[in-house]
């Protein structure tokens, strides 16, 4: 059936009918050539004109509107028999078939189809047309394509009032993403802000797969790496809640308010234990609490992050991030609001010994903290405007750091497959991918994911999928190009060498500093013994400035005199003939 488009319009709607008539030709304008105009131009002979005979092409990108689709299966049982034939009746079907076989068009079409088919069959028999040549050859080294990442999906907060995605956690098998939504800005949360957090199936960005309904918005959320049905979340009011996805949206258990944290729980991690039910949580109230999820009424252990080791809550540092590596089950790292990273030992005998040492690195809160999965002695911290890599042995400073970026870094994590690659997200909505074996000054890949600030970041275990959460509640899923997500042959050894080199450098610098300090101290002691009245080691800033000024004048005077002296000889030698 031909599709025909028909336009109809009433004759009367066309307006007054036009009556055409013939008229003899009339000269309206006659412009004779004016040779005087040629004087304004210069004749150019021969002319060189490039031409290309090819089609004009233009590239245009179009984005269609969001299309919501739903998958469902269809069960096909038996073909579309005409209404009068009962497919169960053998006789009727046979009769129908015989009728079709007598049809003229059937015969004709089948003859043509038969010959085409025979050709292909013979082709198959003659040669295996899909044979793989050069099968045994070593995989050709892929031409280094520039690293890239492409957005696969964006999961938007379905509520009206948008909240920040404060934490993301991948399902251990990777098909689902849990996102915790809360409003982290102080006193900015409105009354009608929803408290829910969602679990998304990455194939379906239209609707979250499961809604989690806590009593207070969740700031952090983690899947249990051992049991993919359970999740634990830390809430804005300091409580910890435990969910089982088989049991629905309400938490199975929530910790009691008196025993929980007094401030939002910023990070919660599952521990490796025999029962698989231990978690520990950190919050800005200065405590790190250990819990057994079967009994959330009170924590099993408590640690106060007081650097003076007295357990004084008033002087405790607020914890913002936490790090635990299952290969070192007794040690853990805590990143604080004050910019200090504290390393603690869980199995210490006295509470005072629990805090082992501290690394003072950042000017602002340490928002992210993670050990390198391949080199657990080195860890990455992110805070203020830099990302720093530390070695456990060097306390004074980081072994490697990025230059100060233009906006605040909010989260970072190492790639689980490539030891030298890590990802950071910033407040201007940019995701940076750093490969320290490739380039150390700048990120290898910098992508603007969205216009608002990005608050959280999480990589899936296969290293290819990255989820980042923004301030307006949108979680973007990106896929990284294979160059950045496949392990190269020398990665580990090269990175080990790099870390060793940097650690050694820092050690040398530290040793040197110590030497200088010792020398100064001994010198100041000596001079104090010799001349008690003299303040040699204690130069006030004013004196230093005066001294610097003096030196400056002396040097400029010398330079000027030297230049004058240089000017004299050339004038004397002018009349000397140099041959």
């Amino acid at each position, binding site marked *: 059936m031909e599709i025909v488009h028909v336009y109809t319009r009433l004759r009367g709607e066309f307006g007054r009918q036009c009556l055409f008539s013939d008229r003899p030709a009339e000269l309206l304008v006659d412009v004779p050539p004016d040779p005087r105009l040629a004087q304004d131009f210069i004749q150019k002979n021969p002319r060189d004109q490039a031409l290309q005979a090819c089609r004009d092409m233009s590239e245009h990108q179009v984005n269609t509107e969001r299309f919501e689709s739903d998958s469902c299966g269809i069960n096909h049982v*038996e*073909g579309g028999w005409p209404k009068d034939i009962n497919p169960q009746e053998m006789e009727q079907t046979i009769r129908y*078939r015989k009728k079709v076989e007598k049809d003229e*068009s*059937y015969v004709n079409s*089948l003859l043509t*189809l038969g010959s085409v088919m025979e050709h*292909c*069959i013979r082709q198959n028999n003659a040669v*295996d047309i899909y044979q793989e040549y050069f099968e045994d050859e070593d995989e050709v080294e892929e031409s280094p394509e520039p690293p890239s990442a492409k957005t696969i999906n964006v999961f938007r907060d379905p509520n009206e009032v948008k909240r920040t995605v404060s934490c993301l956690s991948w399902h251990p098998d990777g098909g689902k993403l849990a996102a915790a939504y809360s409003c982290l800005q102080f006193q900015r949360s409105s009354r009608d802000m929803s408290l829910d957090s969602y679990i998304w199936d990455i194939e379906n960005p239209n609707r979250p797969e499961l809604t989690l309904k806590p009593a207070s918005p969740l700031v952090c959320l983690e899947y249990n790496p051992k049991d993919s049905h359970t999740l634990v979340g830390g809430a804005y009011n300091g409580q910890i809640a435990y969910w089982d996805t088989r049991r629905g949206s309400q938490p199975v258990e929530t910790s009691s308010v008196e025993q929980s944290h007094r401030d939002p729980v910023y990070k919660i991690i599952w521990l490796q234990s025999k029962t698989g039910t231990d978690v520990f949580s950190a919050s800005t109230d200065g405590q790190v609490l250990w819990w057994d999820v079967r009994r959330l009424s009170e924590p099993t252990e408590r640690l106060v992050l007081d650097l003076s080791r007295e357990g004084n809550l008033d002087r405790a540092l607020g914890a913002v991030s936490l790090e635990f590596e299952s290969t070192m089950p007794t040690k853990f790292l805590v990143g604080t609001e004050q910019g200090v990273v504290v390393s603690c030992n869980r199995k210490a005998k006295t509470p005072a010994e629990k805090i082992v040492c501290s690394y003072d690195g950042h000017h602002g809160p340490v928002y992210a903290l993670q050990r390198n999965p391949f080199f657990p002695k080195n860890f990455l911290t992110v805070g203020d405007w830099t990302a720093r890599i530390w070695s456990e042995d060097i306390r004074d400073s980081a072994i490697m750091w990025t230059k100060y970026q233009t906006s605040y870094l909010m989260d970072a994590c190492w790639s689980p497959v490539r030891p030298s690659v890590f990802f950071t997200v910033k407040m201007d909505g940019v995701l940076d991918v750093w490969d320290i074996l490739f380039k150390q000054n700048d990120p290898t890949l910098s992508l603007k994911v969205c216009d608002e600030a990005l608050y959280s970041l999480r990589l899936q275990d296969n290293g290819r999928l990255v989820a980042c959460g923004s301030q307006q509640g949108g979680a973007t899923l990106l896929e990284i190009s294979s160059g950045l997500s496949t392990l190269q042959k020398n990665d580990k050894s090269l990175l080990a060498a790099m870390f060793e080199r940097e650690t050694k450098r820092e050690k040398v610098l530290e040793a040197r500093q110590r030497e200088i300090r010792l020398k100064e101290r001994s010198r100041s002691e000596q001079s104090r013994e010799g001349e008690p009245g003299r303040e040699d080691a204690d130069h006030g800033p004013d004196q230093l400035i005066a001294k610097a000024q003096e030196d400056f004048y002396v040097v400029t005077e010398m330079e000027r005199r030297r230049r004058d002296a240089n000017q004299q000889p050339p004038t004397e030698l002018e009349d000397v003939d140099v041959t």
Partner: protein
Amino acid sequence: MAEVEETLKRIQSQNGVQGIIIVNTEGIPIKTTLDNASTVQYAGLIHQLVMKARSTVRDIDPQNDLTFLRVRSKKNEIMIAPDKDYFLIVIQNPSD
């Protein structure tokens, strides 16, 4: 009529051919050398596939049309020759 039989016999006698099914545009298997259950399954599934493939080819270029469709799998190859009213489906085990 006899030519049709001859053609089908010739095809059947080729190396590796496991079965032949002739389906009309409504998905009704007209002639088959396989058992009923497999025939019905092949007829239904392949019919949908051919419709999809044909519409794909025509969407890309309306002047174009599907002439042949080969689905190669690990165990065998399904070859489909579509026509205006009928399809000829042959399942072959390619020899190599």
